[in-house]
């Protein structure tokens, strides 16, 4: 019986004459990338990163509880001090029962999550069963490890439900992979952790958990300039994921902290 070893074939990328490989060709082995012909690769990468200024700054979080996995994120993308978008999808739907969160370089996260989705599908076709969360996260971690030191910026959480129940893994561009039941990634994560850790109980209902996730993202967007936009909350259960809420954080602010009615005698009226 031939075992599926495509996940093991991660070698250093082919340097030089770009063999313009099709997307599908490049999946079982590492896609080949054109590399600049320079003696100072690190300096060049540093300068090109400054030039490209990939979107960074974000708040994402995920936690396991009694009813499954809750995943939440903001939607702001910033390039330096400029907000390049307020509507970025940071929770990527890898397949109907697995989600990936995006933090770091958005191009890196988008591309590698899509690549992971392809690999998961190929695994399903080759093995006639779904890939486990552990397996999917390992595929991603191994892929990122082979590009270690080349300047990729990926801080992602893979959340899903497989035969062993709910699964949550943190994977980053260093090739690190951690199993856990509570994670928050991004520039707003300290704020999110504060709210998340103090409100967390394993025995929460789905409503309580989604409210906790939403509130944690809101507080992070309030204090972190690089986070904002829309707070999205997803739930992963045994039947797959569902999107529970998407709320503008500006409006959430007044939902949590309503303005007390004015007691001034003269009230400014808005021009009709």
């Amino acid at each position, binding site marked *: 019986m031939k075992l599926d070893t495509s996940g093991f074939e991660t070698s250093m990328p082919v340097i030089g004459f770009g063999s313009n490989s099709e997307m599908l060709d490049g999946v079982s082995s590492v896609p080949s990338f054109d590399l*600049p012909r320079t003696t100072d690769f690190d300096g060049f990468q540093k300068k090109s990163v400054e030039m490209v200024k990939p979107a960074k700054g974000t708040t994402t979080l995920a936690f396991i509880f009694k009813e499954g996995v809750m995943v939440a994120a903001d939607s702001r993308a910033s390039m330096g001090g400029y907000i390049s978008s307020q*509507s970025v999808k940071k929770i990527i739907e890898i397949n109907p029962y697995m989600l990936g969160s995006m933090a770091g370089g958005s191009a890196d996260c988008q591309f590698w999550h899509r690549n992971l989705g392809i690999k998961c599908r190929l695994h399903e076709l080759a093995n006639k069963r779904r890939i486990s969360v552990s397996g999917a996260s390992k595929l991603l971690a191994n892929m990122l490890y082979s590009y270690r030191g080349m300047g990729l910026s990926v801080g992602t959480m893979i959340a899903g439900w497989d035969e062993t129940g709910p699964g949550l893994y943190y994977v980053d561009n260093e090739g690190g992979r951690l199993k856990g039941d509570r994670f928050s990634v991004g520039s707003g994560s300290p704020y999110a952790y504060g709210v998340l850790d103090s409100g967390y109980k394993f025995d929460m209902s789905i409503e309580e958990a989604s409210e906790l996730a939403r509130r944690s993202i809101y507080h992070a967007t309030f204090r972190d300039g690089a986070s904002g936009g829309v707070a999205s909350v997803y739930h992963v259960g045994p039947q797959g994921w569902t999107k529970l809420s998407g709320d*503008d954080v500006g409006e959430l602010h007044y939902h949590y902290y309503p303005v007390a009615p004015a007691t001034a005698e003269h009230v400014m009226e808005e021009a009709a």
Partner: protein
Amino acid sequence: MTKQHANWSPYDNNGGTCVAIAGSDYCVIAADTRMSTGYSILSRDYSKIHKLADKAVLSSSGFQADVKALQKVLKSRHLIYQHQHNKQMSCPAMAQLLSNTLYFKRFFPYYAFNVLGGLDEEGKGCVFTYDAVGSYERVGYGAQGSGSTLIMPFLDNQLKSPSPLLLPKQDSNTPLSEAEAVDLVKTVFASATERDIYTGDKLEIMILKADGIKTELMDLRKD
């Protein structure tokens, strides 16, 4: 001994601004025609807009040599697609192709800031906005290039619609008519030309509809 750094950079910035607005059954793609390097103007009549398919038009600012190379790659990939599938590529398909093309040069990027405009499979206008390494998003309107930071806040003010991420889902179509959108684009470029040295000379506007593409040219300040 301090490290020797390269005195030559493979990149240059030729400036310019690109804007696209998506409507219910049209798409407006506009760009100025000034090509500069440093403080010099190389051309007052250089088109930054390129038709990739019947329903997909690409507009890019940044380093025009990289833009030209990118256009060539996309054009040849589209031709192969047409041979293999006996039809033109749709705009969302072209959007993904562009994203992958950009990402395959992740470690030696195309210095191109792109806006892709066109009509989707349902005939509605669509605009996709990119960063230099391929991260993309479908939006109702977008601006890239040297004047983008001047133009985007104004477009947000005039066109901002509920985010597609909101639940319950709210309609995020630009309510403008085609004539209003073209007018808005002209206004926006006139203002950007006032305050951005790299934007000016002429404005090229392409209006993409189901029955074809119309092009319009408008003069901008030449100073």
